[in-house]
């Protein structure tokens, strides 16, 4: 690990002005610092900032940036009104990691692409312009949607997929003041600048994520992975679906493991709403999801897997036995 200076932030303004990399739980950053994938010269510790509350706001909830994943998953309001978020958090990492991992840090976690974490390999995300070894290489966990010639990495997290389905909003404090960005717009597609995972600028501090008022419906988070716990998603789906008189009254879905960001396409819900659930309908929804899908070889299986997982989730939530 490269040497760095360390300071605890006394206030959010401190953290923004510190000209330093923020460290929260450290569960992703320290991992990458040990590998020298991240080599910050200054760290500012934001753990003791007063950003650890979950409070009612605007009919929904405001979740402070350093609220631990375990506390958020166990919050009774989240379990009751936003079960999809609780389920997504509980499906991620391990009990120990969730006790450290924070809301802000989880949003900003970096890809698990094996070339990104191997400094002996070219990687456009780690070293812009060096090339992408995953294209034509080991790409079993990589993207089937929205990838570019520069990078085919996926965003690996679970929490943000549920937050995308719930249409949550990220609150950010920067050198030019504060702003809000929808979770759906927070992560980026790689394009020609895969070194940028999301819309944050270097000095920006995430202060909170707000959930809108709860929507009616049944919640599911389905995560398909190589082992049944303590593993990242190959495909995951966060869904809230409400039925009314045998028809789908409302639906909100987001997908993990498929792209450089939690995948949200409003056209999928549009296909479903107002219709009676059926296998044919679920197939149409999967057609919309996968219209632009492109396998890379080792990850081709994700295309049929995403279709089958969508079938299973919709069948579960609508009561249609697929």
């Amino acid at each position, binding site marked *: *690990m490269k*040497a*760095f*200076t*360390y300071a605890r932030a006394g206030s959010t303004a401190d953290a923004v002005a510190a000209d330093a990399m923020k*460290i929260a*739980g*450290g*569960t992703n950053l*320290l*991992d990458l610092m*040990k590998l020298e994938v991240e080599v910050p010269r200054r*760290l500012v*510790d934001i*753990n003791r900032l007063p950003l650890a509350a979950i409070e009612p706001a605007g009919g929904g909830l405001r979740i402070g940036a350093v609220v631990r994943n*375990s506390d958020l*998953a*166990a919050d*009774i309001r989240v*379990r*009751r009104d936003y*079960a999809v978020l*609780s*389920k997504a958090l*509980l*499906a991620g*990492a*391990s*009990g*120990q*990691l969730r*006790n*450290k991992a924070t809301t802000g840090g989880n949003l900003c976690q970096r890809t698990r692409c094996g070339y990104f974490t191997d400094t002996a390999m070219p990687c456009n995300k780690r070293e812009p312009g060096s090339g992408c070894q995953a294209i034509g290489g080991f790409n079993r966990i990589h993207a089937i949607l929205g990838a570019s010639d520069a990078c085919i990495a996926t965003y690996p997290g679970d929490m943000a997929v549920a937050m995308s389905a719930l249409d949550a909003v990220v609150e950010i404090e920067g050198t030019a003041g504060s702003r809000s960005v929808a979770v759906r717009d927070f992560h980026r597609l790689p394009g020609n600048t895969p070194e940028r995972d999301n819309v944050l600028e270097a000095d920006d501090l995430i202060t909170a994520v707000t959930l809108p008022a709860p929507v009616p419906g049944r919640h599911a988070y389905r995560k398909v992975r190589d082992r049944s*716990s*303590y593993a990242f998603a190959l495909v995951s789906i966060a869904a809230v679906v409400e039925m009314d008189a045998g028809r789908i009254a409302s639906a909100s879905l987001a997908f993990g493991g498929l792209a450089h960001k939690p995948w949200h396409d409003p056209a999928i819900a549009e296909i479903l709403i107002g219709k009676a659930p059926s296998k044919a309908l679920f197939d149409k929804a999967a057609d919309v999801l996968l219209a632009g899908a492109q396998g890379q070889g080792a990850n081709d299986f994700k295309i049929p897997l995403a279709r089958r997982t969508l079938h299973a989730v919709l069948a579960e939530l609508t009561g249609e036995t697929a």
Partner: protein
Amino acid sequence: MPALVINGTLRSFDCDERTSLLDLLRNHAGLTGTKKGCDHGQCGACTVIVEGRRINSCLSLAVMHDGDEVTTIEGLGTATDLSPLQRAFVSHDAYQCGYCTPGQICSATAMIEEARMGWPSAVTDDVETSPELSDNEIRERMSGNLCRCAAYPNIVAAIRETAA
């Protein structure tokens, strides 16, 4: 330089910022009960209890814990005065090589408290409810602790008996 309350004793250390909590415990505090498996959050051998919560000490900097209370396996019990979980691990033969055992016991000690607080898990059907610690619940909640000797059935039995 960080000062931590380790197993009830306040101690201060002169260490580089890069020192992980794990390396501080083993190399600076001389408490080698806590083990280093992967050093990347992937095995749970380094699990200790900080401020009442189980964490991976390998993915935390010692300086971040200035002022914190840390409990390691040495603080849970001694050879002549074992904790209930330590006793259950012995009576159920819940190990082979024993390398993962300190992490398993620290993790399970805190996990039982999490369950008592009513926390759900990924295998809880209805996350609004607070389930009993079934074997399935124990396995899921302990998935952050790997055992290369695969002593899992006996680990689950020891935890089940202690939690009951």
